[in-house]
């Protein structure tokens, strides 16, 4: 058993998620194919990858919103895969998610205040709770929302305001780990900037760990303390500076905005490196799966590191 070091809030080991489709055909879709990931206190891990690479699945698996097919997840060193739903409740308090579409994450018939305070109703074991109103005002103030907004319905708020409300609800229970699933991809650029600043402020105060999922490489460069690049269900490169000094051919193509038409129609390779069909460096050895090896402070999954 691999024991993660003490400072990691959440760690996933050899995580696999497979979906079966078709009762007779028995087709399998590999959403994630054996991912090791570890996120520390106060750290932002930016996960980059194109649509369908498995970033959202990985985020949800780490929160146990989707049970993994195989692998292990530890939260503060404790295994959470084999826990029952009721045992998981106390962990769920510590792990939260900020959604991509805040408009879908609110009950349209509830006032915003009721949604923001919902976590307190679910986790009623909280002791020494100050009054509801005090809590609400504190959360609204932390997220920069006008107290008047609490009495409105979700459709009366703009996308940016609603995302702030979603963040208020997320931080209500003072979580130690938050999955931010493309929290700004639907927002205007100026609003995006203010939401990112808000998240960073919260992190400074509470030392919360973020898994920041995005497809915007420039944004990942700015927000990520450590960056992981995901391709077809695998992390192919990971490190603090990999977007400025990419080594993996796939990361290079992402940072150079290179596009291959072939890749769009290419399906999964049965074995070996998934990038081999379009990789300029590919040869026979790429038919076997490269392992994630350490290289200059980063980790990389490629056979051709030295040329």
């Amino acid at each position, binding site marked *: 058993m691999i024991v993660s070091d003490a400072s990691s809030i959440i760690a996933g080991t050899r995580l696999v998620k497979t979906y079966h489709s078709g009762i007779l055909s028995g087709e399998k879709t590999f959403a994630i194919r054996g991912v090791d990931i570890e996120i520390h206190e106060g750290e932002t891990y930016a996960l980059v990858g194109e649509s369908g690479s498995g970033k959202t699945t990985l985020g949800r698996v780490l929160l146990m919103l989707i049970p993994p097919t195989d692998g292990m997840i530890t939260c503060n060193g404790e295994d959470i895969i084999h826990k029952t739903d009721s045992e998981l409740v106390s962990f769920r308090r510590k792990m939260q998610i900020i959604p991509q579409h805040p408009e879908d994450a609110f009950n349209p018939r509830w006032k915003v205040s009721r949604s923001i305070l919902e976590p307190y109703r679910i986790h009623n074991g909280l002791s020494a709770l100050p009054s509801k109103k005090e809590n609400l005002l504190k959360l609204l103030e932390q997220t920069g929302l006008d107290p008047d907004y609490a009495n409105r319905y979700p459709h009366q708020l703009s996308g940016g305001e609603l995302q702030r409300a979603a963040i208020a609800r997320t931080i209500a229970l003072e979580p130690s780990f938050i999955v931010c699933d493309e929290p700004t991809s639907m927002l*205007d650029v100026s609003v995006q*900037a203010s939401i990112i600043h808000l998240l960073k402020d919260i992190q400074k105060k509470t030392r919360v760990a973020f898994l920041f999922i995005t497809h915007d490489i420039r944004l990942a460069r700015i927000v990520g303390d450590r960056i992981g690049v995901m391709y077809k269900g695998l992390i192919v490169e990971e490190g603090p500076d990999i977007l400025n000094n990419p080594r993996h051919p796939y990361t290079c193509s992402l940072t150079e905005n290179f596009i291959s038409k072939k890749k769009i129609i290419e399906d999964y390779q049965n074995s070996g490196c998934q990038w081999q069909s379009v990789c300029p460096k590919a040869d026979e050895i790429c038919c076997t799966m490269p392992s994630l090896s350490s290289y200059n402070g980063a980790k990389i999954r490629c056979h051709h590191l030295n040329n």
Partner: protein
Amino acid sequence: MEQVIDISNLTVSFQDNGNLLTAIEDIQLGIRTGETLVVIGESGSGKSVLGLSILRLLPDTALISGSILFKGKKLLTMSESEIESIRGSMIAWIPQNPKTGFNPSMKMWKQIAEPSVIHSGLSWSEARKQAIQQLGLYNIDPAALWADKYPVTYSGGMLQRAMVAMGTSTNPEVIIADEPTKGIDIINKIAIFEMFADLKRKGITLVLITHDLDLAAELADRIVVMYCGQIIEVSGKNQFFHNPRHPYSRGLINSLPQNGLNPIPGSAPPMQMRLTGCRFRERCFEQREQCTSNIPLISLVDDRVRCIQYNSRNQAG
């Protein structure tokens, strides 16, 4: 320079519980033949309403004044049958969300063929061949196979390309696209950029409505910035990205991740609470006394800007 669409004094408002809400106000804009004009602005700035009013797709409840000329013809006052013959054939519209832009129970080829059957008088079998060609042209391979599938089987990027295949099947002169890259990842986005670049090379006039500054940087000839229903800046691409004139435009450029992610303070007021005078003044670092008076769109050589600073400079120089 020749103008294919000429918009003057265009104001669109809506009735809401007895209040008159003005979505766009006094728009003056000439769209030049063959140019790519990118309209940027945040949600609620009125950019989609502008696009919809060119195609006369606004609901009947909208109160519209002013005029829009398409090659000299008055779009706003012509009969329904006349606008039908222009909309979809000479001016194509690519709607914001490709997921809801298709009929889910109709095979893809039929949806792409439909405009050619209606506007160009092709038979269904000819139009089917053309539809498959169109799909292939936009990299939906193998086109013959995908033509017989339903929209649900397409990915987001493919739907966006299929939407363009449909919009361009009648060889329009102008294409108006609303947020063609919203929520699309970088790799698919580049494919969409390339697709529009191809259309641009063919000499089609493009009006791209977006809040994606990458799209503007990649494709625009000129950029129109909208804020709270008004045009506040019209500039050439280089001018806009290297030396934006309006304080709001500068704020947008500075809020990009590569420029340090500096937010503009505050937020745009809702439609019912618009300021008189400069509508941006409460968020502006360069606010001064004169900003409370109404400011016209000031002409500067080829560009225009709605900011008092340029008024005084104009008078001085």
